[in-house]
């Protein structure tokens, strides 16, 4: 794999114009303003703090808020059109996107009878972002070392199935979690072996491993269904942090969650620290960018890749257990429903960085939660279209509207020490 030439030095304080992005933001902002004048006159959006302050709610004036947010979005667009310093571009686009999303939310909940239950929705969003966090972190650990892992979906399925199975056999949720992690890493071990020792095409094998996991778990599900007591739902207890849980908004969101949420947040920090502050992390990144250089410095490229992929399987397996143990559900065929691929998109949005993954996962979790909440509240948009939201957002995101993401240079390229 050829290494790209070094990027040209750009003065990030010099103003630059962004015609296309600026036009998009400006037009969308103006559309919002027009929509506010057309449909939103006199409407209100009710926001309730449903868990801590049960009787407090705020009826926000939808028209005024959407108007202000629309103006903000249009202003961000105008700033880009006029020209802004390169280092401010991210600020402007963040303001634009945030204004768009918030105003759409106020709009969606302005319907008669819908209440934005702030605490339930935010807490649910954080919980729903967990599979994306685990899956995408697993992807980060693989891909920073240069192995593409399309098989996250399959590792989710293996983790979800094994988690419930082991919990049923041993009667312990924690044994189930351990079982899920081991199952995840056993299934990535195959990928690791094929990617390093046998140097097969990782995309092709990843897709096949997904099918294999789907076939295997569905087959075992049918077989074990014949007997009792292999697939009963187990649930992970909610951890409540005493009085901290009673703080409005923060309490229910952060201090009254299941084990998965805390594990996920801790893993983001741990993977970030390991990647950027330890010797292992430096080696991993080196192997993912330029394996031959790492090799010449004495790093065993394929061995490092092998163990990285196996360790990534632990993360993905744990994420798989979220589907069953985390949601107190029994295993069902193909219950992960493509979320493993959404996790891959989260990894790309997060630019292969654990902190970016956290941000991306929160966005996707929030989208999913809003879609569920709106469809339960009886929105005028059909439920199927709301269910499409995470997939549609993924499509938009990978199409690079957020900006072009750059994968590690040696991602997916097998390394053969012989042909340097």
């Amino acid at each position, binding site marked *: 794999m050829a290494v790209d030439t070094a990027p040209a030095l750009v003065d990030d304080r010099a103003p630059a114009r962004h015609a296309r992005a600026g036009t998009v933001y400006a037009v969308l902002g103006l559309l919002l303003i027009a929509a506010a004048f057309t449909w939103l006159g006199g409407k209100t959006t009710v926001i309730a703090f449903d868990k801590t302050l049960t009787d407090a709610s705020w009826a926000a004036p939808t028209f005024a808020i959407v108007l202000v947010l629309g103006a903000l979005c249009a202003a961000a667009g105008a700033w880009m059109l006029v020209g802004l310093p390169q280092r401010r571009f991210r600020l402007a686009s963040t303001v634009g996107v945030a204004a768009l999303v918030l105003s759409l939310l106020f709009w969606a909940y302005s319907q008669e009878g819908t209440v934005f239950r702030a605490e339930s929705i935010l807490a649910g969003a954080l919980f729903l972002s967990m599979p994306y966090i685990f899956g995408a972190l697993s992807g980060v650990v693989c891909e920073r070392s240069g192995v593409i892992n399309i098989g996250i979906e399959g590792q989710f399925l293996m983790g979800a199935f094994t988690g419930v199975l082991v919990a049923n056999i041993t009667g312990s949720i924690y044994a189930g979690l351990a079982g899920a992690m081991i199952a995840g890493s056993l299934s990535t071990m195959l990928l690791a072996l094929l990617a390093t020792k046998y140097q097969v*095409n990782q995309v092709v094998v990843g897709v096949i491993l997904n099918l294999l996991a789907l076939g*295997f778990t569905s087959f075992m599900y049918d077989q074990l269904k014949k007997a009792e007591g292999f697939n009963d739902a187990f649930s992970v207890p909610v951890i409540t942090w005493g009085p901290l849980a009673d703080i409005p908004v923060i309490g229910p969101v952060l201090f009254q969650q299941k084990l998965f949420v805390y594990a996920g947040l801790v893993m983001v920090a741990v993977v970030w620290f390991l990647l950027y502050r330890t010797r292992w992390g430096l080696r991993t990144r080196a192997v993912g960018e330029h394996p031959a250089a790492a090799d010449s410095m004495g790093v065993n490229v394929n061995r490092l890749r092998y163990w990285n992929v196996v360790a990534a399987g632990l993360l993905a397996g744990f994420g798989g257990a979220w589907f069953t143990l985390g949601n107190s559900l029994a295993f069902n065929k193909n219950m992960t429903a493509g979320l493993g691929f959404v996790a891959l998109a989260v990894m790309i949005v997060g630019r292969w960085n654990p902190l970016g993954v956290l941000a991306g996962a929160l966005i996707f979790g929030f989208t999913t939660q809003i879609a569920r909440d709106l469809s339960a509240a009886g929105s005028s948009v059909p439920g199927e279209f709301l269910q499409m939201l995470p997939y549609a957002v993924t499509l938009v995101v990978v199409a690079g509207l957020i900006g072009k993401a750059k994968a590690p240079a040696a*991602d997916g390229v097998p390394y053969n020490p012989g042909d340097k």
Partner: protein
Amino acid sequence: MSDSTTTEAPAEPPAPVEEPEQKPNFMRVFGRYLTEANSVMVTVYSLLLAFLIGAILLIVSDEYTRSTFSYFFARPQDALQASWYLVRDSYLSLFEGAILNLNTLESYQAGQADFGNLLRPLSETLTYATPLIFTGLAVGLAFRAGLFNIGAQGQLIFGMMGALIVGFSLDLPIWLHLPIAIIAGGLAGAALGAVPGVLKASTGAHEVISSIMLNNIAALFLVWALGTSFLHSETKSDLVSKPVDDSAVLPGLLSSLNPSLRVNLALVIGFAAAVFTWWLLSKSTFGFRIRAVGFNEHAAATAGMRIGSTYTTTMAAAGALAGLGGAALALGVSSGGITTNTALDYGFSGITVALLGRANPGGIVASALLFGALKAGALSAQPDVPVDISTLLQATIVLFIAAPALVKAILHLRTPRGGLVTLEAKGW
């Protein structure tokens, strides 16, 4: 050997010839062929290994057989006998559901069953193989351009809907109605298939992710569409579409023999599509461009080919093939009305069909017939044998096909001259 397949460098240098020169007789050459990891023998060994792994899983997951293993050391013959019966019966019922039912054969010989009954398993195999030919071609064609089309499932669903809408809403004579409905299915599939191509060409979005997302969106769209008054059946309350008009139904091939034989004209169209795809790939300019881009896109770009438009047109053509498969379902076996379940997993199985067929139209037809037989067998053998054994066996087979080095290492095969054959798809 096909152009899209690339050859890996042999893992180790060829061993120097030690034995003295001997006259090559037939047995010698044949034995050498059998112990070499060439593509034919890799296929054969992949099948054997997959059925072996399937047998082990059957034994492990069966409660009675597992119980006999608890006293294995006291009476090993119990466990071995139970395992043997289980595996034999399971694979035998797959065979009987897919090729020939031995009981029917007996009653046929005794004169109690007619010839049509005897053909039923084969007809079912061909029925299930038909959509697989189309989806296999859809994945295989894209493979030749270096594109991994996982979206055949969604494209098939769109094709189903396109053919269905034309099938019940237009009022035309049969010689016009049927072809138009089939073409509508192809166009609907092409429309969805083109999206990942356009996205890849314009933004670099990887086709694996975008086509998976479109699969999910298409499946949800079908659920929604079936609930609308335009598509929903007027007579039934569950989620079924209207039936297509008689003038748009694909005629059965063997229904004169026995009306329950479901194999229909779509099979012939599938063979024609395979021949057309072969012609397209190996004889046409478009096919040359596809193969050039798949082989080395930088070289193709240097030679003046437009990479982006090749991605788009290839994906659209692949989508059209999968869409035709959808039309074959909507106008054939499900002409009485499609449900959310009609598409089964034909699109995903198309991936395995294309891999086993090594992206060659001829190979794709052969592997579609094999996997169609697996599916027909598994569906007729349930609930004695879990229906997902077909998915499991398919995935295991193609895992070995995709990783010939693994087969070679497990069975200690020789590296053939020219190296191992694998299929490639590009990374991010």
